[in-house]
């Protein structure tokens, strides 16, 4: 429905100085909105693990302690949520997916990945969009341990796709032959989710 225009309501702003950094239909935020589909899991670190499984030679699992010993990188990236906010220059510390994959033999048929999380959340990604520095598992934000409300102890970050792809509370990656939809992709959201192409909903 078109809707009656509300006098004096301007909606959300796209400041001119950052206009070219905001994907279409997005507005700028400076805070960090909390989005979630369920309660915060609060898995104790001694019970936390990260697993790469599915179409791989043999599955690999890291404990929290082992994961902390993996080489890390710092990232400064812009993130865009499908709920229309974009946050610029977010600073993360994490382990590149490239680093994790060095420990695993991926079956050539395993071209797609299902990221899965504590609490049952899932999201799907093509492998080719996770490698070559495009994605990482972050456990620090702004030089501090990642807050559980933002996905701590660790979350996936895939900055070039809508932020629902950056699974909070991540626990592993499962390699698949076919691109199967995850939690939101199976209910009307776009299978790929590129904010610059405005791939919000299935059919976009």
């Amino acid at each position, binding site marked *: 429905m*078109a809707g*009656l*225009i509300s006098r004096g*309501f*301007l*909606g*959300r702003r796209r400041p001119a100085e950052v206009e070219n950094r905001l994907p279409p239909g997005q507005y700028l935020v400076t*805070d960090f909105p909390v989005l979630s589909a369920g309660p915060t899991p609060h898995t104790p670190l001694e019970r936390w693990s990260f697993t790469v499984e599915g179409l791989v030679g043999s599955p690999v699992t890291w404990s929290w302690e082992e994961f902390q010993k993996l080489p890390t990188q710092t990232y400064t990236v812009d993130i865009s949520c499908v709920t229309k906010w974009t946050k610029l220059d977010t600073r993360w510390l994490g382990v590149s997916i490239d680093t994790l994959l060095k420990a695993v033999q991926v079956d050539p048929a395993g071209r797609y990945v299902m990221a899965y999380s504590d609490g049952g959340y899932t999201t799907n990604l093509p492998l080719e969009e996770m490698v070559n520095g495009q994605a990482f598992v972050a456990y620090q934000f702004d030089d501090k341990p990642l807050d559980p409300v933002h996905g701590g102890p660790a979350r996936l970050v895939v900055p070039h796709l809508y932020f629902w792809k950056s699974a909070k509370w991540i626990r592993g990656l499962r390699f698949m032959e076919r691109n199967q939809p995850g939690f939101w992709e199976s209910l009307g959201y776009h299978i790929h989710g590129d904010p610059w192409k405005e791939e919000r909903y299935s059919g976009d």
Partner: protein
Amino acid sequence: MVQPVLEWQAGRVTAIRPETRQTKSFTFALPKWMAHRPGQHYDVRLTAPDGYQTQRSYSIASPPERLREIELTVERIPDGEVSPYLHDVLMQGDELEVRGPIGGYFVWDVRLGGPLLLVGGGSGVVPLMAMLRHRAAQHSTVPTRMLYSSRSAEDVIYHDELNGMAAANDGFEAFYTFTRQPPAGWTGYRRRIDAAMLAEVIKPFDKRARVYVCGPTLLVEAVANALVEMELPIEQIRTERFGPTGV
């Protein structure tokens, strides 16, 4: 009874009244008004010139006995999107899209009877006030107690009206607790609502109380859990969570 389809209508603002530093009451005249049940809410939708839309739900503060108009009491959330517009931009005479009344779970009317315990935190008092105003308009004497948590006396919404209701001696009593700054000389509660406080206020009603709890999510969680531990039958407890304080 078949319900009419829920549809947006343009409500005209006929009055704006400040209640506290953070809250104002807005009266909307509705072309398609229908009687609500106390506790129900309306959705309010804003549309920008570029087509951007956003909407929020606000509890109705007025009783259904007030015909052809509704009053919504809205807390101004500093970083919010809709409430600052309502507080700072909206003027008498403006038109705004609303739809309602909505909801059938968190409702009370005199037919449901009592004894009634209303527990509110902050602007969570709004739907409870619709119940109390309805009760008063119906000259009901259903035994009713309200436990209302605020930061300070200045933050108590409808304070004078509540005092007036309590003075009517028709079976209504109000209990306040102040979590940050109690008024000078205050001898009542000065802490967050807890199990001991609830037990004191509910005492004359015991397990017969019909309880409505509305406020920030963590307050509602705490109160609901305490009531269940007191073995109050769960079907007598109705809750409405507002989300976090200040968001």
